């Protein structure tokens, strides 16, 4: 898409005027892109803007905006997802699509290319497409071969080139060396020794060329299909996907959800056959004007039950409803399982209802609405520092932890040789039921040097202390204490005259003439 920058601007304005894009190159403004009308006037990329203005004072000039160009290219790549999930970005102005195995869905390779060109044209974007067995060959042909002016389908003329597999050598040999994706300095150096076309290097001895010119041989091999070249896809490749296309776009939320459920019904047997369930699902909504919305939901258990899948997306859509503007409707809806996991059929009890599955579904639904990390289990950690002693872990992750814990419990049980699975250590110090994320400073009156507080003022209320337990000194673990100056904390459990119990601590040790700082860190029942 050579005209990408000018097409981006002309989309919104008059298309037939000469338009050039100028960008500063070495402190001079030079043309970085021209549209067809400007090219017809003889303006070319690289020309100084001042020269172009001198020749044609009336041309429209726009400033280069690489970020916007890239955003447009990514949007187009998103849209190209309708042809194949394997879309690679080839900045600044190209896209690579791996259509192996997809072409027949669109009536063959040529029909796919024609459809692609026609649809892009409808959006005001000019594109040249080449289909070849290797990425390198397609790249060169799309950019440097003068394509046949008569196509079988209208609109295809001059835009679509096709190279049969095995024919890369013939197709490439007349092209300039720039078609091999070489760096400009390499092309220049090759030109200096008289090598200008690919045919010039094709049959030369390889060793001297390889020694002098970086990457030349690798690029050549890649273009000819001797060396392998993978496409780096922009998006993760789903492990299973189903999609539905509509002649009449759909726009209502109800219709979208109905479609998702139908798609899930088609996805389920695919997953079932593999003995898998989905852990991460994505719905892609392709809007008619090319915008693509992607909605993801994660699950705690491998899932393939269609109503449950639909329910999760219903929750998610409910939350992000405002962000998804259907415009004139969606013409493709796709459901993919991005991450799958083994899910064996389980024997459910005949008498008792299946609580575990119901709970997992509840966690998934709440997770879809609020975020999976918001539904948590408290996992105890092996540390004395109160803040770190409990960790909130997403409930969807805890399945594995439970398994590990039960194994640990079993070994502990064997070691202790007792029937009881796990007993709390009764000698463990009592801990509050609520803990403040940040300890709250209080004004306290206490015996010096290290006595418990006698009264303290917390949240503008004065508490007279009648019962005290403590102190319990907790110091930062030395491996966490980077500076070596962390203060110890002396914790007291105190009960006020009204019966309110809190966990207070004194920071550091008593130093004469210095105010001691007291904090409330937690609340007991």
């Amino acid at each position, binding site marked *: 898409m050579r005209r990408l920058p000018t097409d981006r601007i002309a989309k919104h304005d008059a298309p037939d005027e000469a338009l050039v894009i100028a960008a500063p190159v070495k402190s001079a403004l030079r043309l970085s892109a021209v549209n067809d009308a400007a090219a017809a006037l003889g303006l070319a990329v690289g020309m100084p803007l001042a020269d172009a203005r001198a020749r044609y004072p009336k041309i429209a000039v726009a400033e280069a905006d690489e970020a916007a160009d890239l955003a447009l290219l990514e949007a187009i790549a998103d849209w190209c997802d309708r042809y194949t999930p394997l879309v690679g970005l080839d900045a600044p102005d190209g896209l690579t699509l791996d259509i192996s195995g997809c072409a027949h869905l669109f009536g063959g390779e040529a029909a796919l290319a024609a459809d692609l060109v026609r649809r892009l044209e409808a959006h005001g974007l000019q594109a040249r497409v080449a289909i070849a067995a290797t990425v390198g060959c397609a790249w060169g042909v799309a950019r440097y071969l003068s394509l046949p002016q008569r196509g079988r389908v209208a609109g295809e003329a001059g835009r679509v080139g096709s190279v049969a597999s095995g024919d890369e050598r013939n197709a490439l040999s007349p092209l300039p060396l720039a078609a091999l994706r070489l760096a400009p300095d390499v092309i220049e150096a090759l030109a200096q020794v008289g090598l200008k076309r690919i045919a010039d290097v094709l049959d030369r001895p390889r060793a001297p060329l390889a020694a002098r010119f970086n990457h030349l041989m690798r690029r050549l091999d890649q273009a000819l299909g001797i060396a392998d070249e993978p496409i780096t896809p922009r998006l993760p490749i789903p492990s299973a996907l189903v999609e539905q296309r509509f002649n009449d776009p759909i726009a209502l939320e109800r219709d979208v959800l109905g479609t998702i459920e139908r798609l899930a019904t088609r996805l389920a047997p695919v997953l079932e056959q593999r003995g898998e369930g989905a852990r991460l699902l994505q719905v892609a909504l392709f809007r008619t004007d090319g915008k693509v919305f992607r909605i993801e939901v994660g699950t705690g258990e491998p899932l393939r039950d269609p109503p449950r899948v639909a329910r999760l997306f219903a929750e998610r859509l409910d939350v992000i409803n405002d962000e998804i503007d259907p415009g004139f409707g969606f013409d493709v809806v796709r459901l993919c399982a991005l991450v799958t996991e083994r899910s064996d059929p389980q024997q459910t009890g005949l008498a008792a209802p299946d609580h575990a599955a119901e709970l997992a579904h509840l966690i998934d639904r709440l997770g879809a609405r609020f975020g999976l990390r918001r539904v*948590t289990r408290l996992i105890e950690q092996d540390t004395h520092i109160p803040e770190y002693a409990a960790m909130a872990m997403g409930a969807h992750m805890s399945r594995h932890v439970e398994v590990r814990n039960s194994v640990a419990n079993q070994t502990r049980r064997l070691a202790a040789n007792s029937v009881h699975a796990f007993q709390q250590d009764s000698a463990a110090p009592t801990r509050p039921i609520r803990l403040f*994320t940040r300890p709250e400073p209080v004004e306290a009156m206490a015996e010096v040097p290290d006595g418990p507080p006698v009264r303290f003022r917390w949240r503008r209320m004065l508490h007279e202390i009648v019962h005290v337990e403590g102190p319990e000194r907790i110091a930062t673990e030395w491996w966490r204490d980077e500076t070596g100056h962390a203060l110890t904390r002396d914790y007291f459990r105190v009960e006020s005259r009204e019966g309110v119990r809190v966990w207070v601590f004194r920071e550091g040790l008593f130093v004469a003439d210095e105010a001691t700082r007291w904090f409330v860190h937690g609340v007991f029942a």
Partner: protein
Amino acid sequence: MVPAMLSAEPMEQHLSYLRRAIATVETFCEDSPSRALGVGAIDAALGGGLQGATLHEASAAAPVHLGAAAGFALALAALAREPHKQTLWISTDFGSLETGALYGPGLDQFGLSTDQLLVAHVARPVDALFAMEEALKCRALATVVAEFADTPDLTATRRLSLAARDGGGIGLLLRHKASNAPSVARTRWQIAAAPSVPDEFGGLGHTAFTLSLTRNRRGPCGTWTLIWDHHEHAFSALSVGVDAAASDRPDRETRRTG
């Protein structure tokens, strides 16, 4: 259609139909199992214990008693726990910052192990209502506790109550401050911390609450002072007296003398 609605007789029919519908809703689960609190006087007032499959309310008598109110909610959850069922605790982010977040290591005093407890954090009170309604419909949860700084309206509590009827769990609205706003909850409690009886070593004794039952659909209201035994995980009435509480621990004398 409209004239027919306005005529007297169909209106009467409508009303009687609605009344009957409400009556069935109101009396639906008189036979749903109750969870006894283990204190005779309170269980008698409640008609056997805390009614299941419905909604209850608890609030702190003053903000400073919120710890006690949370402890009471945990104690109820521990008493209402069932095998293979879990407890869900829902709190808002602001609430957690303001009043402290539920702290795992302290919970085993209430007999609630952390692998039976799910904690959900939501951004807004309306999200907490949504989560609570969804959770109450789920039969895998024995108790659902949701904390609210403000009071949910009557419609919201009715929805919660209907959801609890479907799911069979106990719903507990834990309010940060007392209010008399209308609600369909079966019982409404006001909780304050009470001075505890120190243990024999002069340390802090068992947790003590002053419970005021300010609304009860099944019987009289009242005020009791209870203690929660951290070892037995059970309530007992403090009004029995200090002597009596000490006398059922014969080992105390032997320990002193021996």
